[in-house]
């Protein structure tokens, strides 16, 4: 019998190893899997390469993972957010590496990674500093740059509802990078507010088919990141 549900956050992240590439979903706090990130802090894997749109806020969630010195490199489109001080300080001190990628290119690199496409051409960033050193090619008299697909060892994703097969539904704009990160990682670990019986999710509405998901964990009342930041909480 297939059952992807795990019963504890520590069990969900136990296999994450030093040096792993970890995709972390979310656009700001929307879709950020804060409980899974905190479990990864407890777990302690180091020298991680993190792929995520932002770098977190305050001293919780992704910012706390970075502050805890577990991340050696981040691949990201927007490492500046309101209340984001952890990343800027480490970056300016030369203690974390940044690969800055236009947001759409980041999304497509993840999508391509999941779809078995090693590289592709995009028009975004042509004639800008972000295209420097990259291969380029003309198609229909327009210039494009070569970008590479990204694959990860793990993805940490937040969704709304799952079943034991790993089929997923999301909520509003918390979907963002979740579905593509599940496809691009060997082990997609998903926290959801609710796990339902197989068959209770209408197959017509499934957003992420279960084949892309390896572990689901129920977190009924996930933390409100903004509130934690407001209260100046820090993790651990």
């Amino acid at each position, binding site marked *: 019998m297939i059952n992807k549900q795990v019963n504890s956050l520590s069990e969900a992240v136990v296999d994450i190893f030093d040096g792993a590439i970890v995709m972390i979903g979310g656009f700001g706090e929307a879709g950020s899997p804060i409980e899974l990130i905190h479990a990864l802090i407890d777990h302690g894997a180091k020298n991680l390469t993190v792929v995520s749109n932002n770098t977190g806020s305050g001293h919780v969630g992704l910012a706390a993972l970075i502050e805890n010195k577990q991340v050696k490199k981040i691949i990201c*489109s927007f490492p500046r957010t309101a209340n984001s001080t952890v990343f800027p300080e480490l970056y300016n001190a030369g203690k974390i590496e940044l690969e800055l990628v236009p947001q759409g290119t980041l999304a497509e690199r993840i999508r391509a990674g999941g779809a078995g496409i090693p590289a592709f051409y995009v028009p975004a960033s042509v004639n800008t500093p972000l295209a420097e050193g990259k291969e380029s090619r003309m198609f229909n008299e327009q210039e494009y740059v070569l970008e590479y697909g990204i694959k990860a060892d793990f993805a940490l994703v937040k969704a709304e509802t799952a079943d034991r097969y790993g089929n997923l539904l999301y909520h509003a704009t918390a979907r963002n990078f979740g579905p593509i990160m599940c496809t691009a990682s060997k082990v997609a670990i998903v926290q959801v507010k609710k796990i339902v019986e197989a068959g209770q999710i209408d197959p017509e509405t499934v957003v992420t088919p279960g084949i892309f998901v390896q572990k689901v964990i129920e977190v009924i009342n996930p933390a409100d990141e903004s509130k934690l930041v407001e209260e100046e909480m820090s993790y651990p």
Partner: protein
Amino acid sequence: MINNDIKIGWDRAEMAQKVALDIPDGSYVNLGIGIPELVADFVPEGRELIYQTENGLLGMGPVPEEGKGDRELVNAGKKYITSIPGAAYFHHADSFTMIRGGHIDVCVLGAMQVSKHGDLANWSTGAKDAIPAVGGAMDLVAGVKRIFVITQHNTKHGDPKIVEECSFPLTGKEVVERIYSNLAILDIKKEGLFVRELAPNVSFEYLEEHTGAKLNQYLKTQV
């Protein structure tokens, strides 16, 4: 003698209104963070625009009532929004398929600098200690059919933002079609910058003094 009662130029709301008037009925529109967000408040009655926000919503509605926001329903600036009846959510690769794939009709962006060729710089001053952050700007200018810029004509220090050549790192080359500033509306053509409309109490000469690039006037028959 300066008469303080004479208002020179447009305020932000008036600039946003000018942009809104130029977006055709039925357009799919992406609004950048900041002044561009104001455009949605000025859509003329009888026109329907659909707003896309690149973090995964087509059919973005107004800001919710105080206290009714959903942390997981936000715009690209990570502010609370609503979705309209008939809206759709999607993941980031689909979102940028809309953007890069040429399915969005108009994008309104802010600017640090715009050149007379339509080159846009709006993501980095290139300063060494600055944390570089690009977001979706490069994808938007590469893929959206029409790029409008809404910006103050000059920086806080009075330097021109509309220049012969951008000194800041580019977001995209030859991408901007029209600039809406507090002083004028400018079209960017192969032949250079053309003044489409002057704001109240702004003369062509005044505009020239505040612009870092050569300005051209349309012949009356061209407008």
